[in-house]
């Protein structure tokens, strides 16, 4: 289909969408005056019922925790599918050196960069872990803290270069970490069932208000999500970065190209 055909089809579709959107916009409640009672009820009751101060974490990890378990499985499935797709073509082998584009100037990284990256990567990772641990008390939680901690892996790559990065982080370890997080979450949902409670019911002692341990089972679920998210994003970064490696002789890619030629 050529570009003009696409635009010709798009125009009526956008007109229909605009009319429908205008209808919906005029029927929406006024901005800033929510009608839903669910959130207001959570705000009013849950601080007393669960001894936590972060309502978002309470909704995610306790009140709607089966929902979050579904999201978590989606995350793990998406990461697994990505890894399978990327590895399907190149196999599981790892390469030592990064790929080079011909004609691209290569600059040695300065000592200042290495030092700053080492400092910042450590700080960022610890900060991410801190955000995970205080998830039930202050803004933060497994999802955010995990993403922050995983972004520190990028700084390791920037400071240490490809091969050291390879040596420090292992794809298998990160995948195991990811699976462990998912497993702990699934167990936190299932173990209460074995004792005759509802799935993911908060059966642990609730802890103290504004304390690191507050919210009972929420603490475990929160940590499990954090671990799983660190593992997921670590695996993603690692496998994508492996795509830019130097080709090895006898790689599957080369065979394919010979076939195609």
């Amino acid at each position, binding site marked *: 289909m050529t570009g003009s055909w696409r635009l010709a089809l798009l125009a009526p579709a956008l007109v229909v969408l605009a009319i429908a959107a205008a209808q919906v916009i005029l029927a929406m409640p006024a901005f800033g005056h929510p009608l839903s009672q669910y959130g207001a009820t959570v705000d009013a009751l849950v601080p007393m019922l669960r001894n936590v101060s972060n309502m978002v974490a309470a909704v995610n990890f306790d009140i709607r925790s089966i929902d979050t378990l579904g999201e978590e499985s989606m995350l793990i499935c998406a990461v697994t599918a990505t890894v399978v797709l990327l590895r399907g073509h190149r196999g599981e082998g790892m390469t030592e050196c990064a790929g080079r*584009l011909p004609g691209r100037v290569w600059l040695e990284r300065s000592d200042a960069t290495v030092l700053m990256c080492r400092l910042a990567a450590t700080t960022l990772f610890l900060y991410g872990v801190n955000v995970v641990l205080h998830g039930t008390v202050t803004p933060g939680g497994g999802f955010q803290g995990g993403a*922050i901690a995983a972004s520190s892996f990028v700084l390791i790559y920037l400071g240490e270069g490809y091969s050291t990065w390879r040596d420090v982080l292992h794809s298998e370890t990160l995948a195991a970490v990811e699976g462990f997080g998912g497993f702990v979450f699934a167990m936190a949902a299932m173990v209460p069932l074995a004792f005759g409670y509802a799935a993911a019911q908060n059966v642990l002692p609730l802890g103290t208000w504004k304390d690191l341990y507050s919210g009972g089972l929420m603490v475990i679920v929160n940590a499990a999500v954090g671990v799983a998210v660190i593992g997921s994003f670590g695996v993603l970064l690692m496998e994508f*970065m492996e795509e830019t490696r130097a080709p090895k002789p006898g790689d599957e890619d080369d065979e394919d190209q010979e076939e195609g030629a």
Partner: protein
Amino acid sequence: MNWLVGIALLTSALSGLLVVTSRIPRRQIYAMGANGVALALLFFVLQAPDVAYSEIAVGTVIVPLLFLITLAAVAVNRARP
């Protein structure tokens, strides 16, 4: 407070437009980073610090980086004899 919400909404609308109109993928990555910051500020103004955290870490670091690595991998594939 009123105008702050308005400005944040308009900024995120504008940065979304920029992501679409920057047709060269390498430039689009910068626009995506800017969009991530604009959205994070909007979420912060809408009293959602948790979501703003998540958007800063994911929308301005990890997703643009994945796009960058993909472009690098495409370039390496293309350079391969």
